[in-house]
């Protein structure tokens, strides 16, 4: 089932038909035991979970299972960590929590995974079936609550269904457009005997997904590209999910065409590649935005024309362009933008076919124009002698090496990281893109470090986001995860402040984080060493020192609250109204 693609396992191989392994080692037993056996058989190595009343039988069975369990300090961390684990490893992430508050605490994380199309399986405890619907202790209707934010969900009412449901859940989560699948397990069900632990062959007549694109359409796309004078590739998260990064790179090199990425697409083409114009959208590079605005052919791959890219102006976005939209989800075609050449299929398979058929277009004037823009509007910042956040990120890129994983929280630091950290490969830059969840970064760093124990993991966070899941310092110590915490501390909610400064006449409302703790003392209380950095000269030394320490380290970078993220296309404005570039 699993196949190696550029060094990482991917959970799904679109070219093979789903086959059942007959080698299941499961033997009959109670639901909890069979559940864990089937999970192990699915290749699950780690579960991020938090126990509770409804799951006691499962936690008892866990003592006899080979599956590793990681215990964070909040259920939200379980789901974010499983999410990041999936993003890093390409496998389906697994988390679990007990009924009621435990399940409810997962909701934000499930929404986060849903928005970014991340394959996770969520296991929740539930009250016994005879108490369902009676407002019993620690009961919530979690399948009902999460319906709009899951790809599918199950409330198991018969223990004999457990093997089939688990098998289906992994199949649904990891194939097609990936997403979260929830399995709600009543307490009596996991305690009931399962006589037949072998899952049947997955048979879902109502679930289908496309793999190979329509060859005629790919032919059309190749023709359109050959005739184009101003083509641009617009690459998103789907490129990374499908393992299409390498073929995308070959394609843009063979055809010698420019490429822009979304926030989710960062890493699909290595930073610094001559054909890469940078990130597109609200805080993207001016050149990337101008290129999309001016192009005559937009090759959109694994993207969904999010409003952070289109500025919510679907009728003014890439208006001169013919649009080729390659996506595995047919519902994305035409959702926001009318498409001339839709291709429903797996990004990697479609790009491989397009690569075979591509005829490089002759576009010297377009490249001249793009190079002029790049020269005129470079991504830059003013080095004013203060500690600039951009300097920190550039230095991290320098000292961290090519393989460091970066997870971010949400806010200004996230956008600076997207702009200035040199991401070299797919599955290296982990961020909450669609939902924009503050508090995601630290759990994500934990999930990433568990997935790749030998790689350097940076958490880039702010003092606002960090305090949303600061309790995970304990998890970091308990599992000896050597995460390097890069805290950009400006004492305010920086992104909110930036908007209030720019669009609300500097009427600052509720953005001061008075009474911030001394973060170094907090870290030290958990046994994590801290370093404070207040000037640009200290940055490199501090980072090197942090890297030399074998365990987790927190670096408290004191930056100015007046720093802003530029360039910026204000919401609802066209690219020509971009701030910070004088276009």
């Amino acid at each position, binding site marked *: 089932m699993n196949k190696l693609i550029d060094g990482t396992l991917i959970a799904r191989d679109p070219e093979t038909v789903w086959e059942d392994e007959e080698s299941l080692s499961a033997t009959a037993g109670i639901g909890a035991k069979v559940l864990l056996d089937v999970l192990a058989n699915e290749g699950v190595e780690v579960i991020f979970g938090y126990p509770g009343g409804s799951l006691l039988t499962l936690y008892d069975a866990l003592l006899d299972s080979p599956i590793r369990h990681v215990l964070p300090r909040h259920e939200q961390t379980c789901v974010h960590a499983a999410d990041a684990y999936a993003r890093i490893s390409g496998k389906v992430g697994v988390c679990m929590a007990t009924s009621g508050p435990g399940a409810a605490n997962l909701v934000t994380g499930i929404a986060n995974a849903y928005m970014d199309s991340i394959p996770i399986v969520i296991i929740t405890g539930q009250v016994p079936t005879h108490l369902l619907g009676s407002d019993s202790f620690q009961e919530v209707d979690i*399948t*009902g609550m999460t*319906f*709009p934010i899951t790809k599918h969900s199950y409330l198991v009412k018969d223990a004999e269904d457990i093997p089939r449901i688990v098998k289906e859940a992994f199949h649904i989560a990891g194939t097609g457009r990936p997403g979260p699948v929830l399995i709600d397990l009543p307490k009596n069900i996991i305690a009931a005997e399962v006589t037949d632990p072998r899952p049947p062959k997955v048979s879902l007549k109502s679930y289908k997904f496309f793999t190979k694109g329509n060859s005629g359409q790919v032919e059309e796309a190749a023709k359109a590209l050959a005739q184009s004078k101003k083509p641009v590739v617009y690459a998103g998260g789907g490129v990374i999910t499908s393992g299409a990064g390498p073929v995308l790179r070959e394609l843009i090199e063979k055809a010698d065409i420019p490429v822009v990425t979304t926030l989710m697409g960062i890493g699909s083409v290595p930073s610094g590649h001559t054909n890469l114009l940078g990130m597109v959208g609200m805080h993207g590079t001016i050149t990337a935005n101008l290129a999309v605005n001016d192009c005559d052919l937009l090759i959109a791959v694994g993207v969904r024309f999010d409003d952070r890219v289109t500025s919510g102006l679907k009728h003014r976005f890439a208006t001169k362009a013919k649009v080729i939209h390659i996506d595995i*989800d047919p*519902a994305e*075609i035409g959702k926001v933008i009318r498409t001339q050449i839709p291709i429903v299929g797996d990004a990697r398979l479609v790009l491989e076919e397009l690569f075979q058929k591509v005829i490089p277009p002759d576009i010297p004037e377009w490249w001249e124009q793009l190079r002029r823009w790049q020269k005129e509007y470079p991504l830059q910042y003013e080095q004013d002698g203060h500690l600039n956040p951009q300097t920190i990120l550039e230095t991290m890129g320098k000292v961290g090496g090519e393989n460091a994983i970066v997870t971010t929280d949400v806010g200004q630091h996230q956008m600076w990281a997207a702009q200035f950290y040199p991401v070299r490969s797919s599955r290296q830059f982990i961020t909450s893109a669609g939902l924009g969840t503050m508090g995601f970064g630290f759990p994500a760093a934990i999930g990433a470090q568990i997935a790749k124990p030998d790689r350097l993991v940076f958490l880039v966070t702010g003092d606002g986001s960090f305090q949303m899941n600061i309790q995970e310092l304990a998890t970091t110590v308990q599992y000896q995860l050597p995460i390097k915490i890069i805290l950009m501390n400006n004492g305010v909610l920086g992104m909110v402040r930036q908007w209030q400064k720019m669009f609300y006449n500097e009427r600052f409302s509720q953005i001061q984080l008075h009474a911030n703790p001394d973060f170094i003392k907090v870290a030290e209380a958990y046994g994590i060493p801290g370093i404070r950095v207040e000037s640009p000269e200290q940055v490199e030394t501090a980072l090197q020192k942090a890297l030399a320490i074998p365990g987790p380290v927190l670096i408290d970078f004191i930056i100015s609250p007046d720093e802003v993220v530029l360039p910026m296309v204000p919401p609802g404005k066209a690219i020509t109204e971009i701030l910070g570039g004088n276009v």
Partner: protein
Amino acid sequence: MKHTLAVLVENKPGVLTHISGLISRRAFNIESIAAGYTEEPDMTRITIVVEADDEYVLEQVVNQLSKLIDVIKIIDLTGQDRVHRELALIKVTATPETRADILNIVEIFRAHVVDVNKETVIVQLTGEERKIDAMCELLEDYGIREIVRTGRIAICRGPVSAKEV
């Protein structure tokens, strides 16, 4: 414009909620929704009537509905040659003086009286919405106590079934 969608789904709990939730979130008004068993034991058929001016948005909703794992197939019956019907039960005030007039109306519409007592009658009528609306309008003069309607169900004419379309 009114659209009639035939949605074939797995007969599983929560499917109806999922479908109506998804449609209403995308800002459509569901005019009617009717669900029932079909020729296949594990399949339910839901007929939904929605008001949608923008074909593009409707297509989006159909695409989104198709993504639900329990949805087997969606057919837009709007443009098709089809039969559609609704059933209504109407409780009307019927005194000895007015009863004959009411029965007269019932006969004209080829409806049936299914219950009668000293004060009221219950009229059962099958037909297209307009027919039901028309009869309700006439019966209003006598005093309608209660109306219950099933919502539209629809089926294509000819030998082909919806799942084969």
